[in-house]
């Protein structure tokens, strides 16, 4: 299959600081890929390299099979949407949309046709004569997307496009971006630090840390089978529970001596042994009747209860470690209650304590 964007051994240094190091990434035609990571992990830098706004220190970038490493941004067949919208303040919405086309010397009627189409798709026709200062945040971001849209490019680059919007607008525009992708079927590369955006939008997520891609996989795999401790801890809110201990004789023995059976766990490369970390997500710990039949069960005391509306979050101690679990908000649960909880390590993850990689 034709790759839309290919990155080969890409490195970027700012002086002595290595921001990206020998990074490889292949993105398929029409794929929606999200670069996810904390600030300073190099995700925006990578996007700027793909756009041609930063010169790379080493490596190559291909877009649609063409080596664009030395090309100007405008020649790469990309459109970009920025966090701060970056609309030209002195131009009307229409002029903002058509600026790139006017620069390229396109014919007037073709410009009008493209602006019309983009403003229809994004429903900003009534705003065309306004200045950016007279638009709301959501409208501005729509215009910014429109500016990428009129260029009729194959690859869309989004640099944290929703981070400046309030929570309600953010979830609205998130759905719109997804709809746009389904309609246009362009390749989209989307940078964010918001894991909900990543999980909801992406075909595949690339989780980055210190300029290195930690895991590149579909959201389901990222969430359920994180490749290392970092990914496991980064994805999921509330975070995954971690219990340190040792793997011996087909069981996981926690630091306080609690033995947790791991017979049902699917190892990557055969059964492990030695120091390990057990990770279990809050929703994979069950209470009450659901806990019956789980390979590991324990009677615990509830310490703190956080009702979230649709569900309830409870804090307790398992194997000497503070642990959170989720349960239905219908369950009547209070601090001080004693209850039976249980989980199956098959739903959880085991990591090597030293290399921090998944076992």
């Amino acid at each position, binding site marked *: 299959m034709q790759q839309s964007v290919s990155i080969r051994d890409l490195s970027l240094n700012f002086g002595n600081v290595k921001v990206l190091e020998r990074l490889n990434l292949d993105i398929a035609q029409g794929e929606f890929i999200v670069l996810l990571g904390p600030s300073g992990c190099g995700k925006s830098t990578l996007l*700027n390299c793909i*756009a*041609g*706004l930063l010169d790379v220190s080493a490596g190559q970038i291909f877009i649609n099979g063409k080596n664009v490493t030395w090309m*100007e*941004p*405008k020649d790469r067949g*990309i*459109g*970009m949407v*920025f*966090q*701060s919208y*970056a*609309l*030209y*303040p*002195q131009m009307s919405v229409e002029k903002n949309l058509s*600026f*790139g086309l006017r*620069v*390229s010397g396109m014919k007037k009627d073709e410009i009008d046709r493209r602006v019309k189409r983009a403003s229809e798709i994004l429903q900003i026709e009534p705003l065309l004569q306004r200045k950016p200062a007279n638009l709301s945040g959501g409208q501005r971001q729509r215009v*910014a997307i429109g*500016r990428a849209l009129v*260029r009729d490019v194959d690859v869309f680059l989004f*640099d944290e496009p929703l981070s400046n919007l309030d929570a309600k607008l953010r979830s609205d525009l998130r759905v719109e971006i997804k709809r746009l992708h389904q309609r246009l079927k362009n390749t989209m590369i989307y940078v964010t630090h918001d894991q909900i955006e990543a999980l909801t939008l992406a075909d595949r997520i690339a989780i980055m840390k210190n300029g290195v891609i930690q895991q590149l996989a579909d959201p389901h795999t990222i969430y359920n089978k994180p490749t290392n401790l970092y990914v496991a801890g980064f994805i999921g809110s509330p975070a995954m529970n971690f219990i340190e201990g040792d793997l011996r004789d087909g069981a996981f023995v926690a630091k306080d001596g609690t033995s947790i059976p791991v017979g049902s766990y699917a190892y990557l490369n055969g059964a492990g042994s030695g120091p390990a970390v057990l990770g279990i997500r809050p929703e994979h710990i069950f209470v009450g009747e659901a806990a019956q039949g789980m390979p590991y069960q324990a009677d615990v005391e509830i310490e703190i209860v956080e009702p979230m509306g649709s569900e309830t979050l409870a804090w307790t101690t398992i194997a000497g470690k503070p642990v959170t679990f989720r349960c239905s908000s219908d369950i009547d649960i209070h601090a001080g209650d004693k209850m039976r909880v249980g989980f199956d390590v098959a739903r959880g993850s085991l990591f090597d304590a030293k290399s921090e990689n998944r076992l």
Partner: protein
Amino acid sequence: MSQTATMTGTAPATATTEPSGPRPKPFFTPKRIIIYTTLVFFSLYFLFPLYVMVVTSFKTMPEIRFGNIFALPSQVTFDAWIKAWTSACTGLTCEGLAPGFWNSVKITIPSTIISIFIAAVNGYALVNWRFKGSEVFFAILIFGSFVPYQVFLYPLVIITRELGIFGTLQAVIVVHTIFGMPLLTLIFRNYFASLPVELFKAARVDGAGFWRIFFEIMLPMSLPIFVVALILQVTGIWNDFLFGVVFAGTQNYPMTVQLNNIVNSAQGTPEYNVNMAATVLTGLVPLIIYFVSGKLFVRGVAAGAVKG
């Protein structure tokens, strides 16, 4: 419910003693008195010389000789003003300040436009088109603003002589452009650095080049800082004496040099009313610029100071 009821019930009774609504602000507080006294004092301090100048310029010489310099003129006369403009002696010729005024205009307008344009491009390139050694280049440029003008005088005289423009308007214009560069580049650089860099990136993705981004994106956003640069340059160049007297040549002397020649002429009795009128006339241009664009000036200064 019962609580709100009691509150509305007790409110009228306590309204006079209990604080309620906006806090009263008495006008004559010690703080205010100090502030206004200081302000009035310094206003008078700066305005008094101006008052004396204007009043004197409307007096006749006999009246001035009475010595009441603070008194209003008994008979207002514009003779001193007319003489200062048309027939006061500035060295060898006696044509008043008018030729000097036009010389100053011929010096100020091109110098201002050229220096601001070059500095704006400098600042823009230094912020958005970083090149190898751009920081060093900037440091050297800024260092230039710390070197006293006198140090440059002799080398510049030689340079302009070799270029064949010594003693012409071009020479003064070139010198003013050079000396405007450090400060103007600094304020333009700081202003452009305060604009979101994403705007520049977006324009590059849209395919615009160096000049197109400068003229179509950056310039329309830079009005406040242009006003600041304009005021700095117009007042600086208009008030300049040193470069004018050194580089312009006698027939091109700017207004400041001719004013000096009027005021400092050693022949005859000093005509104070003409001197005062000539001085006010010379200072009029920067004064008008301040009044017209003062508000924009303050806004621009603040904008340029945001980022270093």
